[in-house]
């Protein structure tokens, strides 16, 4: 067992614990923050596996953007807090399915890769990754950009409040701020602002 294995076990324990907290936490905001911790732990796992670029991308995209997006979602939907409200009745079913699948997959993994071990972990350099993206993976890359654009427009269309095709805002969202300036007030302010040139010059000297 090398030092890399020890570091990996520590990071993996952190990640697994944060993941369990994510699905068992009673507090919604705690669940979202645990998700951020899990994603950061995953970035740590990438670092241990010598995938530096992917770890940075994971930190920027998932920890930075997705976790904040989830926090927004939780706060905008004002969900009730409490385990009874958060968990449905089929917790036992979930435990059975997840546990059964974990045992099955772990057995398969140990049977297939139990003896596989690598002395030296090597990751692709960022130069190799860049060449690979723009040589071998150009078409998926451009497709992904189109997908992101479509998702952006679709999310805006889905989430904005609108009464009909006219694009007029719904009544509920119109915020009336008191003391809106009337037309007369606006004209008077404009008149007061137009000062003679002499006064302007004096103001400039001061």
């Amino acid at each position: 067992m090398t030092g890399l294995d020890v570091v990996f076990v520590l990071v993996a324990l952190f990640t697994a614990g944060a993941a369990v907290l994510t699905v068992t936490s009673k507090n919604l905001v705690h669940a979202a923050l645990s998700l951020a911790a899990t994603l950061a732990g995953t970035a740590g796992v990438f670092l241990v596996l010598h995938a530096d670029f992917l770890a940075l991308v994971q930190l920027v995209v998932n920890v930075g953007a997705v976790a904040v997006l989830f926090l927004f979602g939780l706060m905008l939907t004002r969900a009730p807090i409490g385990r009874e409200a958060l968990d449905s009745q089929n917790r036992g079913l979930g435990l059975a399915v997840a546990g059964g699948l974990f045992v099955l997959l772990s057995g398969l993994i140990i049977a297939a890769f139990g003896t596989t071990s690598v002395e030296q972990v090597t990751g692709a350099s960022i130069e190799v990754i860049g060449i690979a993206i723009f040589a071998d993976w150009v078409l998926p890359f451009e497709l992904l950009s189109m997908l992101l654009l479509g998702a952006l427009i679709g999310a805006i269309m889905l989430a904005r409040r609108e009464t009909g095709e006219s694009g007029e805002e719904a009544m509920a969202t119109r915020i009336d701020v008191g003391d809106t300036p009337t037309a007369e007030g606006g004209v008077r302010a404009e008149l007061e602002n137009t000062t003679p040139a002499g006064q302007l010059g004096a103001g400039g000297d001061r």
Partner: protein
Amino acid sequence: MSLVGPLILATFLFCVGIYGVIARRNAVLVLISVELMLNAVNINLVAFQNLLFPDELAVSGLMFALFIIGVAAAEVGVGLAIVFNMFRNRASVNVDDVDLMRW
């Protein structure tokens, strides 16, 4: 470094995600669990790439992980927009409340 460790960790995260999808009622928490499962797959891909095939020039495992991160971000955006719509129409984000198709 042994290959079993990352694979077992990825399996664990995936199963935790499955438990979350089944057991949680809040739609946002279900989306969070889906995000956990996608990350588990990323760990798998990176482990296979860097431990088993480190000399492949078209770094397929890393590329798939990158694309999965991008698609997951798009999925979260659209999914949250749908959840907001659901909340506006039903005043609830409980996945059990949206049962219009069950007659």
